[in-house]
């Protein structure tokens, strides 16, 4: 079994599900002949034809909206938005339609679609290509928001997302698209949505994160271990609906929590997790929850992007803070 990168695992899952389920349709800009600007859809058009792997005109509102129409007709639309910076024209369709079609019609119509988009910084991309705004979607009732952080989770979660009968926003951390390779058997086994994954067990502090930041966090956990601090690392994976139980259990054990995300701090998803921790664990927390997040500024052009994004050092420091304060 060859090893695959995260983006290759996305491709594997798409191919698997298109093969297994005729109703799966991929659409977007440059997803066909070109196989996607990151090659996530490479080879799909050759295999499944131009109608099921459709190069659309350059129109994001249309891409999202026509996916709703396809979904209502029983197709499973998997639209790609080329970068998260261009996802905003879809919000109207996602919020006002996709997320509530089942609700509005009392189940008469449904909207099984997976809107994929690469997101996040760290690859020296041009302007508007490096943002992380998952919190916007996490606030919208009726959606799922899923973020894989490894090849095998990309494969299993994307399968689950496509099979899910409701709309999913599937955000792919492009910084780690090719960072590591893993053996991913193409066995069609989905991973569960709506649950966190514990990537590393630990006793002293829980570090909660997702996407590309899991890698910085795992490195931070290594460093902390060297200094005698045992960190438990949780990959949230499905941001909405949020599996708070896993986080609460972990923090019940460790008494300390650091939340790490690349997105701007204010009203980011870290706030929700911190708020729930405070609601449920106030009396067991040994130290205030720390958020390590992007600053509340515009994601800078690439000469400063590394200054903007949380890194191992900031995570280590925050974890140590929680140790000191208790």
């Amino acid at each position, binding site marked *: 079994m060859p090893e695959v990168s995260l983006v290759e695992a996305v491709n594997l899952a798409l191919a698997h599900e298109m093969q297994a389920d005729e109703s799966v349709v991929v659409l977007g800009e440059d997803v066909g002949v070109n196989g996607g600007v990151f090659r996530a859809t490479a080879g799909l058009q050759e295999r499944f034809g131009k109608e099921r792997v459709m190069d659309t005109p350059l129109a994001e*509102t249309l891409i999202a*909206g026509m996916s*709703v*129409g396809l979904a*209502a007709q029983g197709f499973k639309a998997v639209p790609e938005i080329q970068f998260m910076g261009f996802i905003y024209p879809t919000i109207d369709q996602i919020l006002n339609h996709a997320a509530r079609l089942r609700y*509005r*019609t*009392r189940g008469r119509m449904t909207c099984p679609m997976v809107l994929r988009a690469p997101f996040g910084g760290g690859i020296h991309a041009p302007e508007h290509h490096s943002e992380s705004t998952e919190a916007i979607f996490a606030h919208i009732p009726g959606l799922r928001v899923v973020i894989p952080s490894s090849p095998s989770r990309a494969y299993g979660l994307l399968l689950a997302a496509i099979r899910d009968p409701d709309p999913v926003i599937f955000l792919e951390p492009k910084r780690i698209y090719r960072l590591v390779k893993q053996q991913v058997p193409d066995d069609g086994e989905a991973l569960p949505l*709506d649950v966190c994954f514990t990537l590393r067990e630990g006793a002293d502090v829980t570090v909660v994160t997702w996407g590309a930041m899991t890698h910085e966090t795992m490195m931070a956990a290594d460093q902390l271990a060297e200094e005698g601090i045992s960190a438990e690392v949780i990959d949230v994976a499905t941001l909405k609906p949020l599996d708070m139980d896993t986080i609460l259990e972990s923090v019940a054990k460790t008494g300390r929590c650091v939340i790490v995300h690349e997105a701007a701090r204010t009203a980011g998803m870290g706030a929700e997790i911190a708020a729930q921790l405070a609601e449920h664990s106030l009396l067991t927390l040994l130290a205030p929850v720390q958020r390590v997040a992007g600053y509340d500024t515009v994601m800078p052009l690439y000469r400063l992007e590394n200054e903007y994004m949380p890194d191992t050092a900031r995570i280590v420091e925050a974890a140590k803070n929680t140790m000191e304060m208790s």
Partner: protein
Amino acid sequence: MSKDKGSSTGSSTRVASFEIHHTRFLDHNGEVTGELPEFTRDSANLISLYRAMVRTRIFDKKAVALQRTGQLGTFASSLGQEASFVGIGSAMRTEDVLLPTYRESGAMFIRGVTMTELLLYWGGDERGMDYAGPREDFPICVPIATHLPHAVGVAYAMKLRRQPRVAVCTLGDGATSKGDFYEALNMAGAWQLPVVFVVCNNEWAISVPRRAQTHAQTLAQKAIAGEIEGEQVDGNDVIAVRHCVSRAIEKARSGDGPSLIEALSYRMSDHTTADDASRYRAKEELEKQAINDPITRLNTYLIGNNLLTEKDREALEAECAAEVEAAAKEYLATPPPPSKAMFDYLYETLPASLVAQREFATKRGSGNA
């Protein structure tokens, strides 16, 4: 729309040209202005169109009355536009899909949406969108023009499955200013999808007159941007609307591509019951429009050609009125949904994290459960 190429002068060459046509069969006096289409030969067809318009108008009046007496929420009247909506609905086959905005009661009734369902919707109850009849028709779409991309997706699905079906999508004149309109039109053209867009031009978008929406002489010509068929039809002539929309639908059904039809009519009512058009619209303009009433027009023709008697008409009106009263009664007798209904159908299976919220809401609910 027709086109031709060629012709060159000096450094400048003509490379494309286009035309827009307008169709009408009955003028506002009910006089025939051209050879009537085939379907009019069977007078039952005309009576059925007439009935559908009358039914729509009687429903409309009732809905407004319910709203005025605090028994219904905001309602969008279709007064004056019945020919457009009935013409569209009657041109469709059962297996086609309608994607309406919020004013097309007449089309929706023909599709099989019940009056009770429509009242429930405007009465603030989602169950009004769970149509027992046309299961695949889209519910009312309030965010203007956002359903046009849906129509394109529906048409794409039909094309993928090689089904001889058509998506019919209605919109207002104001809606033609939205980017969604154009993106949908362009995609429909690029992929030659089986979709028909009908712009129900009623001259107003709330307080904004048609001429302020766009400098375009016709809304039909917007089709040229996507190189799809574009034409105008007299939207108060139900025969013309049915004819043109039918023709476009059957063209789409045969795989010959999408169309845009502009149906010219007039909004005789306020925008909705929440609006007061006298603030921005001259009384005289409204009065001048009275002669275009689409029901009167067909009535004149039917009576004039001895296809309908005064007695028939009265009977027909009485039947429609009874139907409307029965629907209103059923609507008013429908108890509100229980609080926990807020969590039904949010997802196929309520996620674990929302179970506690549902319990809380149920417990606190106003006892509808």
